[in-house]
């Protein structure tokens, strides 16, 4: 007998889990199909020995206090019916944008960044304050916003290019699928989520969030099937009829929410010839995850995240080398306000993330001689140590553990073409595709970050499935 459900969700990442909860909450028979043996997608975890590591999540953006009203994070909690305390959020100490001649500190209070800009760029402060007003008043999640490049808009307020680069640096590297610039709506989403709301970390890291989502999903009656790769999305006369998993088994359904990414989704649609070919994003990363015998604060660093750039101009683009040695995001997961996590030890974690070139890594990985790939990972590691030094980390520590992942690792675990992290430059903002019943959720719908991806899953499930039922 053929298996049949109401809705199939592709991918058990943040957006897939969130939409799965919403749909099962309102009595849809929901099946989430996940290619891997664990959930999380781009924000997942792994263990080595007794040590647990997060991948993806450096920090949760969109930090709010429970009393704040109407912010993305509050909306998310209400829609998923998860009380605030359960996320166990711990706010950041402060973060730093570190360029060759200037540094800007920011925290979860915009006053700090404003003061830093006042000190470092006195002629720009009035423009910055006007920019803040413009951003606060802008409706960034309006699904009908036109695409306008953000730097063009920001130049109406700020004339100093180096300040523009410093402001853009964290926003680009934490979410832009575009090189060196981004769509203004996405810029505002990122600006609000990082500068106006800010960073926090759930106690226990990404697992805390995933466990909350998994429990909610179970409670609502939703099902996840692991090791189930969607190899075909089947439609007939431009209408969804089902999906094929692992090249063998077919499950019928009327609706599919796909978090695979736009090009990745279109790539498995059976009536693909009717679809446009979305661009594959260019941005991928390598990361060194390091563990030391001391906490970063005992080694001289109390910043939570350092956006490091060592060039006169900041480049957010696919490098022509294996990775960009001169810029990085350096994350210190111990440097959140209450470093009293249950899973915490005296050990310190350091994460250094560089923009990387997928094609070059892929060539190394596919070559006969595996030694080159290993050697180059060692180069990434040595560079990370140098960057940490330049960020002010004292060197009297023992390295207990190191793990380096590359764009090919990302591709292996996420199935994103070319190991992209922020997806395609073609977004489906309203989630629609030319196939009736097939909707895009997650990064390629266009809300960014962990909170954004969960909101994406929720709002697309509401808009296309639940509200449709009310009519």
């Amino acid at each position: 007998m053929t298996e049949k459900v109401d809705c199939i969700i592709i991918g058990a990442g943040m957006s897939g889990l969130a939409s799965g909860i919403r749909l099962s909450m309102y009595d849809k028979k929901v099946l989430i199909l996940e290619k891997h043996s664990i959930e999380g997608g781009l924000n997942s975890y792994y263990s080595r020995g007794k040590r647990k590591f997060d991948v993806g999540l450096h920090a949760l953006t969109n930090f709010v206090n429970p009393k704040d009203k109407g912010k993305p994070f509050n909306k998310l909690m209400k829609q998923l019916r998860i009380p605030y305390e359960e996320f166990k959020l711990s706010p950041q100490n402060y973060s730093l944008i570190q360029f060759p001649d200037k540094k800007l500190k920011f925290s979860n209070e915009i006053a700090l960044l404003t003061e830093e800009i006042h000190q470092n760029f006195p002629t720009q402060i009035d423009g910055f304050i006007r920019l803040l007003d413009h951003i606060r008043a802008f409706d960034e999640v309006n699904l009908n916003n036109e695409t306008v490049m953000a730097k063009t808009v920001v130049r109406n307020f700020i004339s100093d290019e180096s300040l523009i680069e410093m402001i853009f640096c964290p926003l680009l590297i934490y979410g832009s699928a575009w090189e060196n610039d981004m769509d203004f709506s996405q810029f505002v989403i990122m600006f609000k989520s990082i500068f106006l709301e800010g960073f926090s970390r759930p106690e226990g890291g990404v697992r805390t969030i995933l466990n909350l989502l998994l429990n909610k999903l179970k409670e609502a009656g939703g099902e996840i099937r692991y090791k189930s790769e969607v190899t075909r999305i089947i439609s007939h006369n431009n209408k969804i009829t089902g999906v094929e998993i692992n090249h063998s088994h077919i499950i019928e359904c009327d609706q599919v929410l796909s978090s695979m990414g736009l090009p990745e989704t279109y790539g498995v649609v059976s009536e693909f010839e009717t679809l446009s070919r979305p661009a594959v994003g260019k941005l991928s990363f390598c990361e060194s995850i390091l563990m030391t015998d001391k906490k970063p604060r005992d080694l001289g660093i109390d910043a939570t995240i350092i956006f490091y750039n060592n060039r006169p101009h900041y480049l957010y683009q696919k490098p022509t080398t294996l990775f960009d040695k001169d810029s990085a995001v350096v994350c210190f997961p111990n440097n959140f306000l209450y470093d009293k996590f249950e899973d915490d030890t005296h050990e310190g974690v350091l994460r250094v993330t560089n923009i990387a070139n997928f094609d070059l890594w892929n060539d190394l990985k596919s070559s006969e001689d595996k030694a080159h790939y290993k050697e180059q990972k060692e180069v990434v590691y040595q560079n990370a140590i140098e960057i940490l030094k330049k960020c002010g980390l004292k060197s009297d520590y023992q390295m207990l553990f190191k793990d380096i992942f590359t764009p090919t690792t990302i591709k292996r675990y996420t199935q994103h073409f070319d190991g992209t992290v922020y997806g395609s430059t073609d977004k489906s903002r309203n989630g629609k595709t030319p196939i009736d019943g097939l909707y895009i959720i997650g990064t390629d719908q266009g809300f960014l970050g962990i909170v954004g991806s969960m909101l994406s899953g929720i709002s697309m499930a509401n808009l296309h499935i639940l509200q449709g039922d009310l009519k």
Partner: protein
Amino acid sequence: MVTNEEVRAKVLDIIADIALDDDVTGIKDDVALREQLDLDSMDFLDIVMELKKRHKIEVPQEDYPRLASMQSCVEYLGPKFNQ
């Protein structure tokens, strides 16, 4: 017969589940819910969906304004609970 108090209690149950972090015990019946609680249009949709799920009561879109305050909820939903 479902009394007005019972209708109020059922609506309050729904609101309490949706506005998780809000205190719903002091809701004033004649003041708009939006003014007292952190509810947006997404949450009102949830109220409508919960009414359908829990009590099989359908609220057509043109009647959404009738759910504005607790008092108007009771007036509007009372007859529907007793149908």
